[in-house]
């Protein structure tokens, strides 16, 4: 527990919207456009927080609580996630299970809020979301299990702190597999191409967008902010596998931030180079991610 550990969640809350900006700028670059400014997400959040909200008469408190609970869960999850060699503020044995469940609870309340609206449109998005979650969550847990087995630790901080120079030998295949699996899960959970197109406006193709369609103003602001936090958390899990250790803890934090930005650029590249998968294929992709993680788990049984 040091200064970097405390600074990390703060940095995440403040800097996460930059990730969205980086992705959009990369996509614009590939498309030959200028693209929105890097800080566009901040401007959007500022605009949203100053607007007034309209609530439908069919909704209940769940609809208003959904985005808030989601945001709260993600904040709590932020305290558990390390960024490479930067320790998390709260680290204890089994915190990886708590992390998975916090993300799950956030998802549950988002879905509940979507269903609370009473429209079949949001219901369709909710059903797709949970279907994908059915495949994605076991994959995540299997991957974390592989990591735990390999590093002989049950706390995320200890697992990610394990790797440094000489330890590379022998774990390269496992790390590559886990990176692949986690990256696919990262794309799936953050609703990126090839799982879901964040820019789509076509009814039949929306998944996450349609769930939050009826939220406005402050609620939608929290939804967007929460999305950036989720990207930071899952991105930290992917990038943390490869971050080198520096001597100063603040240096670790800086390296982590740079790594996350790099991941955002890579995501932008992936989004620019691929099209969205057919809906039938997404479970196959997620099963593929699960298989990669399972293969990694099997490699740890030496």
């Amino acid at each position: 527990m040091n200064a970097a550990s405390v600074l990390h969640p703060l940095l995440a809350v403040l800097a996460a919207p930059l990730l969205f900006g980086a992705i959009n700028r990369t996509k614009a670059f590939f498309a030959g456009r200028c693209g929105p400014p890097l800080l566009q997400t901040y401007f959007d959040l500022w605009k949203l927080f100053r607007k007034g909200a309209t609530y439908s008469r069919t909704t209940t408190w769940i609809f208003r609580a959904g985005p808030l609970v989601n945001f709260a869960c993600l904040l709590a999850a932020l305290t558990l996630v390390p960024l490479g060699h930067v320790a998390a503020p709260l680290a204890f044995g089994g915190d990886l299970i708590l992390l998975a469940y916090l993300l799950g609870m956030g998802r549950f309340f988002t879905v509940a809020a979507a269903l609370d609206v009473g429209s079949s449109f949001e219901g369709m998005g909710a059903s797709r979301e949970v279907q994908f979650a059915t495949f994605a969550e076991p994959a995540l847990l299997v991957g974390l299990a592989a990591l735990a087995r390999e590093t002989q630790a049950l706390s995320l901080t200890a697992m990610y702190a394990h790797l440094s120079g000489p330890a590379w030998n022998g774990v390269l295949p496992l790390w590559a597999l886990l990176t692949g699996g986690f990256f696919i899960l990262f794309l799936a959970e953050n609703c990126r191409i090839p799982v879901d197109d964040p820019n789509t406006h076509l009814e039949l193709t929306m998944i996450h967008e349609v769930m939050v369609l009826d939220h406005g103003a402050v609620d939608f602001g929290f939804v967007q902010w929460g999305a950036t936090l989720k990207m930071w958390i899952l991105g930290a899990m992917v990038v943390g596998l490869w971050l080198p250790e520096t001597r100063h803890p603040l240096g670790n934090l800086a390296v982590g931030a740079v790594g996350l930005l790099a991941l955002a650029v890579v995501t932008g590249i992936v989004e620019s180079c691929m099209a969205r998968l057919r809906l039938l294929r997404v479970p196959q992709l997620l099963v593929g991610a699960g298989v990669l993680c399972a293969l990694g788990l099997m490699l740890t049984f030496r």
Partner: protein
Amino acid sequence: MNNTIDLILVALVLTDLILLGASRLRNAIRILAAQGLMLGLLPLLAHRGGPIWHALLLGGGSAVLKGFVFPALLNRALRETNANREIEPFVGYVASLLIGVGALALSFWFGARLPLPAATPSQWLVPTGLFTVWTGLFLIVARRKAITQVLGYVAMENGIFALGMVLVEAMPLLVELGVLLDVFAAVFVMGIIVFQINREFDHIDSDQLSALKEDAP
């Protein structure tokens, strides 16, 4: 060097899994070619003693045969039979993948039970070889088209070859070449028969080749 062999073996398992989940014949043939090329590297990496040209000949021959010749034969059969390019499985792709993971776990378990001779370059060799053999067998059984069955046969031979190539350095060169030649001839003849099947039946759906069944009593 150990790391490289491990990486190749993991890549081999990945190609097997992709084969299990592949839905387009063209892609499956490409993956098989990649498998063949990777296998060609194994003898060179695992070379421990004896003349280097032995390993070069075997690895090079295997790479050329499995990376270029077999895919060319299969693609030619694909073109000439004008088949529908989907694979049409009996067992769905997701189910195949999941069963594959189960088989992979079994291969690891079985590989752990066999006491390894001292000089194997990697402990993941036996499980990988067994899993590739299993993948080939599964493709033969659980896929409809005759071409996919030939694919499965080549995949099976790949697995056996991988096991033999590295487990054994005492296999005489002549026998290995004989094996390669036999496999080549087998694939060649199979290609011809597939062509004949298409000419005779207008399809290459081996599931429909069921005229020779026992009549119900």
